[in-house]
């Protein structure tokens, strides 16, 4: 074991706001420390790089104990939008960038960004659906090649 981390590959598999931000913060933070970083988006995590969807990422209002709200309330129409709005307001107050700005920032830091081929095929997406920062649609085998020699974090 070496005592410093030189490289990380972070997998983002969830499409909720609280599912996407931690991976983005860790990738951006890694680059700020001079650590090589790659982001791999799979399953619903693909929404974070989908050019029409990344502006509409929502907080999960149902089945989310962290909301401290009964799921029965969460199912009311518009609850997810309200929760998202409140969260976005709070984050803006702490100067946390929204997801589109964050993606641009992370791309500029030189972090690699990739989409999972199996998920892209499953959802019927194509390369043109994703933001320009995405460097490619890759297989799980190619992901392991890219991640070789570093730590892998699944979120």
């Amino acid at each position, binding site marked *: 074991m070496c005592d410093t981390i030189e490289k990380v590959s972070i997998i983002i598999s969830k499409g909720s706001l609280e599912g996407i931000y931690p991976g983005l*913060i860790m990738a*951006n*933070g890694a*680059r*700020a*420390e*001079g650590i090589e970083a790659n982001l791999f988006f799979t399953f619903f995590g693909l929404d974070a790089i989908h050019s029409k969807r990344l502006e509409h990422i929502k907080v999960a209002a149902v089945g989310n104990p962290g909301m401290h709200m009964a799921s029965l309330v969460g199912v009311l129409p518009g609850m997810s939008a309200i929760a998202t709005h409140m969260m976005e307001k709070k984050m803006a107050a702490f*100067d*946390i*960038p929204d997801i589109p700005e964050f993606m641009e*920032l992370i791309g*500029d*830091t*030189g972090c690699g960004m990739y989409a999972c081929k199996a998920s892209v095929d499953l959802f019927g997406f194509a390369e043109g659906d994703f933001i320009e920062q995405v460097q490619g649609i890759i297989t799980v085998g190619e992901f392991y090649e890219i991640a070789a020699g570093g730590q892998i974090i699944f979120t």
Partner: protein
Amino acid sequence: MTVDTIAGTPVDVNEEGFLTDPSQWNEEVAVELARREGIDPLTDRHWEVVRFMRAEYEAKGTGPTVRVLGKTSGVPVKELYQLFPKGPAKLAAKIAGIPKPRGCI
């Protein structure tokens, strides 16, 4: 805390090599600190960032993070990483003789 002699100047540094007293800093110290980090020579563009870091520290008591640096220093994020590949805010702070910025984003 230990004393390190950088470019002939004795300075107090922490375990990561950051100066603990920014007033002990001078331009020769900056050049030597940069060289130790593999940045040689310090170009005008590097100096722009380093001076900005010191000015921010003097005004606010803390150095900016990469995102803030990209927004306010006049040097965009992409270029910041070209100038300081091993972490722009961290390295520029080290070379500027100020503490490491402690922001998550």
